C-alpha cells in the first residue's frame, strides 16, 4: 500500500500540482500532488471540495417528503436515494420489508433495475469507454463519447439507447423522468398498466443482447491488456455489500456481507439496521469526506470497497443465467478467490448491467408486476433505516422522527464515501507508479483520473450550470509561487494562463 504518501514529512519544500476538478466524475474533486525538486511524488490526496450538508438538508422536514426530497441530493442517482429513503420510511410507518405488498416490492425492484442499468450504461459508454477504447494517454480530443460514436458507431449508439431504456423504465414505474413519486411509505403509489408493461417489453430482448455484447467487449479489452489491467491502481482490500439470504447477488434488499482480500468471510447475513455496530466513520482534517471502516478490523485495516466489484466478488451466484455465466468467467480470469483489479470495476459493472436487463425481463413477465395492491400499513415507529445497493455501492439512509413526524436526525453513508479510502489509495499508487520523476502532461494526469473514474464516484452532486466546471492545473514551486497554470474551461478549451 501507499499510505506513506498521504502526508509528506517536508511539505513546505515541495512543489504542488493541482487537478481541479477531476473531470468525468460528478461534482468537484481535486487531486493534489506535492513534488520534490526531482519531480518525485511525496504526497498525493484526493480532496472533496464541497461539503454535502445532506443531513442538514433533511432534518426538520416531515418524513413523507423524503422520497421526493432526497432525489435532489444527486442528479445522477436520484432513484437510489428515493428507494433508500422509501425503505427507511417504510419502517417509520411500521412496515418491514417482508410485509411490503408483493407488487410494490416488485415495482420497486423494477425501478431499481432501470436505474442501475442506465447509470452503468452512462458510466461505461459515456465516461469510461473513451479511455478503454482509445487508451489512457490518447489525445484528449479522442477521449469522448463523440469520438466513440464516430469510430465505434454501433457501440456508441448502444450506450445512448441502453441509457434511454433505463430512463424509460424509471418513467413508466414512477410516472415521471425526474422527481417521480413512485415509492411512498409502505409501498408504491402507482401501478404499472398493460400498455406500459408492453412498451417496456418491446425492446427488452435488444437490451439483453447489447448487455451481452457489452460484457464481451469489456472482457476483450481487459484480457487483451493483461497484466496491465490487473495491476493498474489495483488494491487488495476488503469488500462490503448486500447479498440474498442464500448468498446470491442482491441490489435491492438483503443482509450485509463483508469479505477480506483472500475471500474469507468477515461478516454475513448481517441485519443492516444494526450497521452502527459494525461500521464507524473516521474524520481526517484535510478533507470533508469521512473514511468508513469495519469496526472489528480497526481504522488501519478495516476500510473496504463497495460497488460492482465488491458485489460481484462477494456474491456466490447471480440468479440470471447470462450474467451468472459472465460472473464465472470474470472470477476465473483472476485465478484467485477475489478479483482486486481496480479496472475490473468496469467488467463487474457490465455484468451487473446485463443482470439488470435480464431481471427487468423476468419482472415484466411476472403477473405480480401489474398488481394493484400496493400499500401496507403498520404501527408508527420513530426510527427507520433503509439500505440498498446503489449503482456505486451500498447506500445507507437512517432517520429518526419526533411525535409530529418531523425528521430530527438523519445519517447518510453514500457509496462514494465508502470508497473514499480506496480511491485515495488508488491515486497514491498511480502517482507513485506512473507519475514520479516524469514531466507532467495532460495524458499522464488522466491516468490519475482513470483510477478515480473506475469507482464512478459521485463526489458532491454539484450543479451543472453553464460555466460551473473548469479544470485547473497549477504548478507551484517550493515557496508556493505559481510557475505554471493550465485552465480547462467548461467548453473544453484548454489555455495556459
Amino acid at each position, binding site marked *: 500500500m501507499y499510505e506513506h504518501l498521504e502526508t509528506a514529512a517536508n511539505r513546505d519544500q515541495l512543489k504542488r500540482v493541482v487537478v481541479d476538478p477531476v473531470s468525468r466524475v460528478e461534482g468537484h474533486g481535486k487531486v493534489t500532488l506535492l513534488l520534490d525538486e526531482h519531480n518525485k511524488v511525496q504526497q498525493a490526496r484526493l480532496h472533496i471540495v464541497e461539503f454535502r450538508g445532506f443531513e442538514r438538508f433533511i432534518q426538520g422536514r416531515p418524513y413523507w417528503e423524503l422520497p421526493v426530497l432526497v432525489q435532489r441530493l444527486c442528479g445522477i442517482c436520484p432513484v437510489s436515494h428515493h428507494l433508500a429513503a422509501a425503505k427507511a420510511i417504510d419502517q417509520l410507518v411500521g412496515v418491514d420489508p417482508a410485509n411490503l405488498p408483493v407488487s410494490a416490492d416488485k415495482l420497486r425492484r423494477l425501478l431499481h433495475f432501470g436505474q442501475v442499468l442506465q447509470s452503468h450504461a452512462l458510466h461505461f459508454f459515456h465516461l469510461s469507454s473513451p479511455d478503454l477504447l482509445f487508451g489512457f494517454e490518447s489525445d484528449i480530443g479522442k477521449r469522448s463519447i463523440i469520438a466513440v460514436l464516430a469510430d465505434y458507431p454501433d457501440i456508441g449508439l448502444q450506450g445512448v439507447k441502453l441509457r434511454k431504456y433505463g430512463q424509460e423504465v424509471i418513467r413508466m414505474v414512477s410516472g415521471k423522468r425526474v422527481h417521480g413519486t413512485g415509492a411512498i411509505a409502505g409501498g408504491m403509489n402507482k401501478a404499472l398498466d398493460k400498455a406500459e408493461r408492453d412498451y417496456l417489453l418491446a425492446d427488452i430482448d435488444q437490451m439483453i443482447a447489447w448487455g451481452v455484447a457489452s460484457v464481451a467487449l469489456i472482457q476483450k479489452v481487459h484480457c487483451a491488456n493483461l497484466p496491465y489491467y490487473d495491476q493498474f491502481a489495483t488494491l487488495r482490500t476488503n469488500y462490503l455489500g448486500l447479498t440474498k439470504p442464500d448468498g446470491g447477488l442482491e441490489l435491492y434488499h438483503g443482509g450485509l456481507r463483508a469479505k477480506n482480500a483472500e475471500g474469507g468471510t468477515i461478516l454475513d447475513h448481517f441485519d443492516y439496521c444494526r450497521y452502527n455496530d459494525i461500521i464507524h466513520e473516521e474524520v481526517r482534517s484535510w478533507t470533508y469526506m469521512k473514511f468508513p471502516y469495519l469496526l472489528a478490523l480497526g481504522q488501519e485495516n478495516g476500510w473496504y470497497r463497495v460497488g460492482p466489484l465488491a458485489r460481484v466478488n462477494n456474491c456466490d451466484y447471480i440468479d440470471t443465467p447470462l450474467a451468472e455465466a459472465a460472473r464465472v468467467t470474470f472470477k476465473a480470469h483472476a485465478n484467485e478467490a477475489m478479483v482486486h483489479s481496480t479496472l475490473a470495476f468496469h467488467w463487474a459493472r457490465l455484468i451487473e448491467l446485463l443482470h439488470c436487463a435480464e431481471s427487468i425481463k423476468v419482472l415484466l413477465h411476472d403477473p405480480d408486476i401489474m398488481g394493484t395492491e400496493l400499500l401496507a400499513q403498520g404501527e408508527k415507529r420513530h426510527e427507520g433505516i433503509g439500505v440498498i445497493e446503489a449503482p456505486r455501492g451500498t447506500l445507507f439512509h437512517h432517520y429518526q422522527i419526533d411525535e409530529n413526524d418531523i425528521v430530527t436526525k438523519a445519517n447518510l453513508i453514500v457509496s462514494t464515501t465508502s470508497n473514499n479510502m480506496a480511491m485515495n489509495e488508488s491515486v497514491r499508487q498511480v502517482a507513485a507508479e506512473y507519475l514520479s520523476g516524469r514531466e507532467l502532461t495532460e495524458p499522464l494526469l488522466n491516468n490519475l483520473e482513470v483510477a478515480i473514474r473506475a469507482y464512478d464516484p459521485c463526489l458532491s452532486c454539484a450543479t*451543472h450550470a453553464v460555466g460551473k466546471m473548469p479544470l485547473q492545473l497549477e504548478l507551484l514551486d517550493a515557496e508556493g509561487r505559481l510557475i505554471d497554470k493550465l485552465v480547462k474551461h467548461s467548453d473544453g478549451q484548454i489555455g495556459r494562463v
Partner: protein
Amino acid sequence: MPVKPVLVFACGNLSRGDDALGPLMLEAIERQQEQQAQPLELLCDFQLQIEHALDLQQRVLVLFIDACVAGASPFGFTELSPAKDNSYTTHAMSPAAVLAVYQTITKQAPPPCFLLTIKGETFGLGEKLSPAAEQNLAAAAGFVNGLLVDLTTSAWRKLIITSA
C-alpha cells in the same frame, strides 16, 4: 404518442439555490400553457445527458433553459451549433454537445436549437433562490413571453442577444 414540434428543455435542481432557475422558468411556461394551448412539449431534468439527443428527434424548434454563472446580463439568448466540446468529460453535457451527439447518431443536422441562460450566483444544497436570481428570472420571463408569441426560427433569430 405524436411528438410535439417544439421542445422546451430545462435543466436544474430545485433544491440547489439558483440552479432552480431552469425548472422555475419551465413551471412559469407550464402555467402559461394551461391558459393557451401551444404545440410545446416541456421536459425537465437535473442535467443534460447523451440520451437527451433522442428527445430532439422530429422537432422543428428547441429551447434549452439553464442557469449560468458567466457574464453580467440577467439572461442571454443564443442559437446553438453542434460542438464537440469536452463537456462530455463530466456527468453533465452542454446543450451544444447534445446536438453533436444527435448529429453523430442520426447523420443529420439537428433542428434549430436555442439556449436561454439565466444568471445565477449561489448553488448550495438547500439554498433558496438568491434575490439577484429572482430578479433575473423575472426579466427572463418577460423575454420568454415574447419568444412564445411566434414559434418560428426566423422570429427567434431576431431576438438573439449577441453579447452578455
